[in-house]
């Protein structure tokens, strides 16, 4: 009785790559990513991660040493490869940056966690192969071979080098090449599972977690690493498209010697492809059937008979039926979610002063109209509420069903289209790659924002009372304050500066706004005065550690 569910919407993630590559290769098996640990839900940082953190620290120290030594060796020693100049220039400024960071960094608490750190320092054994190899061609396609799915980017599975077949090794190498471009520190790459996103994540974490709990020693290296990786990740993510292309070329280079040069890719024959005959027949029958169903109009008699039945059965319903069904109530409430915001925006628009008499009159009329709309909406909400209450009385589920009386029934999505509308699959047409990207990016951002807002509300409800109750010892109060401030007011990205009053003298504000001076020369406000106005008048670059990083984090998304 149950209709078969034929949902082919789930495709393996690697499928697009496979399609773009050569079609006559038979080794798809190795493409299947092993989703070993990407779906683990860790509830807290594990001791393993602490170990990895230590490993990372050590690797980074080594990396710094190595890099310094590399900078000293002549370029020829590396074998005249093309991209090395970029690699050379890369380290120099980064090095300087690292020094700066080391100087001004603060401690990072032990509990700072960094994800996706490889447990395999053995991969750092091949630093030379991480250097840029092939010249980067700009041929758009030729041979793009299989590449492991990006799902692996986020997995923590350590790679087993040398055991996989040649292609996998080549692709891994290519991946490593790519990262060598973006992070010009090979040891770091090797140690850190070579992920761009890892770099981003590390820096993201570090930004938020530089709460100084007084533990200054351990975190210095970490911040340095985070900086590098972050910049690497930033570049990497920004050039994701290009670098993956370059990767493909290096892979192709490696593999070109293995395979025959005949090209058999999608680009060449894409426009001449045809469905296999069987499928073609089935498909055309199917689409014709859909069309017929979609275009079918019920005869007038049938419609009349149906309406008659519906009317009659509705007369047998409980006599005081509520005005709205539960489905309708939910739908209406959902639609009205935006109304307060809309109205508020309109009110704000009308608040401005109006130069002319006409504008003022218009504004007055608009405001009155808005007032009417607001009261109408309020009235409707009242009706909906009453309907909900009376529906509650009729609810058949309310006989003690396992405690949670949410009706099992989740309303079907896509109902608003009407019953014939659902018979056609709507098309979403895009006209360029950039549009498609923007579309996906925006969808993700909207979801993120929704989540952030929900989290913010919950955090406000939970954290603010903690502070406002003032039940903690003085020392931790400040750090707690700073942490909560960061989370609540700056989205966890930037944090305030909390100088102590007794450190400041009353010598007035100097001409130069160095961070140190900030601490020394800020005149303490009188108790009771508004602390936010001096804060507002301060130099906005009062962020000491996080400015550039914070801005960059907002850039990638």
């Amino acid at each position, binding site marked *: 009785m149950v209709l078969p569910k034929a949902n082919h919407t789930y495709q393996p993630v690697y499928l697009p790559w496979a399609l773009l590559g050569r079609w006559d290769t038979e080794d798809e098996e190795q493409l299947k990513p092993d989703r070993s640990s990407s779906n683990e839900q860790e509830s807290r940082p594990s001791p393993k991660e602490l170990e990895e953190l230590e490993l990372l620290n050590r690797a980074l120290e080594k990396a710094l040493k190595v890099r310094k030594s590399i900078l000293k060796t002549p370029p020829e020693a590396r074998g005249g490869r093309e991209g090395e100049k970029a690699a050379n220039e890369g380290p120099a400024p980064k090095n300087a940056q690292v020094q700066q960071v080391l100087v001004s960094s603060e401690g990072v608490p032990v509990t700072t966690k960094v994800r996706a750190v490889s447990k395999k320092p053995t991969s750092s054994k091949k630093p030379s192969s991480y250097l840029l190899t092939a010249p980067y061609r700009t041929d758009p396609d030729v041979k793009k071979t299989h590449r492991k799915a990006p799902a692996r980017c986020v997995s923590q599975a350590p790679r087993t080098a040398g055991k996989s077949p040649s292609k996998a090794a080549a692709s891994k190498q290519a991946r490593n090449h790519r990262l060598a471009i973006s992070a010009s520190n090979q040891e770091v790459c090797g140690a850190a599972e070579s992920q761009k996103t890892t770099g981003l994540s590390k820096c993201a974490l570090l930004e938020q977690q530089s709460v100084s709990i007084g533990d200054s020693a351990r975190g210095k290296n970490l911040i340095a690493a985070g900086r590098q990786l972050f910049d690497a990740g930033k570049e990497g993510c920004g050039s994701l498209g290009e670098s993956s292309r370059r990767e493909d070329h290096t892979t192709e280079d490696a593999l070109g010697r293995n395979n025959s040069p005949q090209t058999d890719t999608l680009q060449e024959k894409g426009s001449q492809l045809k469905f296999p005959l069987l499928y073609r027949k089935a498909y055309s029958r199917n689409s014709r059937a859909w069309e017929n169903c979609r275009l079918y109009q019920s005869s007038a008699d049938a419609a009349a008979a149906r309406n008659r039945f519906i009317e009659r059965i509705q007369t047998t319903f409980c006599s005081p039926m509520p005005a709205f069904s539960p489905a309708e109530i939910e739908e209406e409430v959902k639609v009205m979610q935006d109304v307060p915001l809309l109205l508020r925006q309109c009110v704000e628009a009308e608040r401005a002063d109006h130069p002319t008499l006409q504008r003022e009159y218009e504004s007055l009329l608009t405001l009155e109209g808005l007032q009417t709309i607001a009261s109408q909406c309020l009235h409707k909400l009242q009706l909906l509420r009453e309907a909900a209450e009376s529906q509650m009385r009729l609810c058949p589920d309310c006989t003690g069903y396992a405690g949670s009386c949410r009706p099992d029934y989740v309303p079907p999505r896509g109902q608003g289209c009407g019953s014939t509308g659902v018979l056609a699959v709507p098309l979403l047409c895009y006209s360029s790659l950039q549009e498609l990207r923007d579309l996906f990016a925006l969808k993700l951002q909207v979801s993120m924002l929704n989540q952030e807002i929900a989290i913010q509300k919950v955090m406000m409800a939970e954290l603010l009372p903690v502070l406002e109750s003032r039940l903690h010892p003085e020392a931790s109060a400040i750090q707690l304050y700073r942490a909560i401030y960061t*989370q609540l007011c700056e989205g966890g990205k930037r944090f305030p500066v909390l100088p102590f009053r007794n450190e400041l003298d009353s010598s007035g504000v100097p001409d130069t706004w160095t961070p140190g001076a900030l601490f020394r020369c800020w005149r303490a406000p009188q108790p009771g005065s508004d602390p936010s106005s001096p804060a507002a008048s301060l130099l906005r670059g009062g962020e000491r550690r996080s400015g550039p990083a914070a801005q960059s984090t907002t850039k990638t998304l």
Partner: protein
Amino acid sequence: MFCMLTLFPRFALLQSLQFWRLLYSLLKQVHGGQCTESDATDTQIRFVKSALWYHGYGRPELYWLPSDGSAGSRELLLAFSWLLHRIGLLEQLLARNRVRTGDETSVCTCEDDLPNSQKGRTEIAPEYSLEDKVDVRYLQWLNGRLRFQWRSLHALHQEQCKLLHKIHLFTSGSHMDKILGHFSVTETDLIRRPENYKQLLQFLESETIQLEAFLEWKQLEQVYWRWMETVLDNMSEEGSMCKSQDAHTKKSTLSKVDSCCHWAGSLTGKIDRLSRDLMTVHDQLQELVTHRKSAWYEKMKTREEELQKEEFCAAARKIQEAVQLKLLDLTYRCAPRKKKMHGSCRLVFRSKHSASKTGFGRSVSKEPISTVSATEVIRELQMRKASLERELKQLQEECRQRMDEVAQGLDGVICISP
């Protein structure tokens, strides 16, 4: 199932239990849930009853049916027919189970309510019972993790876009259906490795059979509804005898209202929140309007003669019309928008200069399929994003103010915000 519908007199012979099961599986499918056959009968029956209630079915006799499924096949038949019309059951089923071979993506911006799993929440923080203090660093760590996940997802999406676009581009012009124009990933793979897709072919064929059966049923629809009316007539004759007995048993169960309806609780909560927000806006408006009105009248007092002038009246009328339009537009935005699409759409690449080349001439005779352009969706998403950002900033601002108040209480420390 369609074959059964065409032989509908046999329905009367269907046992009630089977009918309950049928309704259960159909309703489960329509809302996308998993059909767990292992569910006990009374769970299934409860589910069906709550679903019918949700859609507004008000016939009390159905809700009085026993939960062992032993009686009531005709009531179920009535309910089934009502559902057929009310939610377009058959069309929904066809649409949900449709074989989709395109690259699908959804365009709706509605935020699904987070699933109400109490269990899930307590799992996440096992070590932090209420006695322990919650470490804010844990919170920061979680936050960082979340951001990491978002970024990875973003990177993955972008990668996917690039590849999808390539495939669409390379296969342009090959599809049988000129409206689509190019292949999707699945279709390309089908061409490459047809042997992997035998099942798809089978599904496609069985779907075609279902569609043809559906069409047949549509042609017999009139007879069906007339038959249903006769069933209703029979029921109402018999029903009046039983009503008095059952009614008073039901009243006692209905009195348990206060212990239940989490659904209603959350919904009324939402409504109350909305009302509160609207109330504040309304009060603001009231204040503003009275203030402005009095200012206006003050001004008008000094310009009596000007008001009499013809041109001012004409100007005033024009302004009124303009304002009406503006308000109408606003009400339209506040009112339900039927146009909003939920569900998934098929991604189709149409470059601007090739739009004329694709065979649009062929489809002129048919009704156009609903198409949505990415530009529109992007615009809507941008507006949505902007309003969400505003909301977030407002919340943050509120936090900042409250934190400032707290800072005043902190001894010896000033907070300098970034």
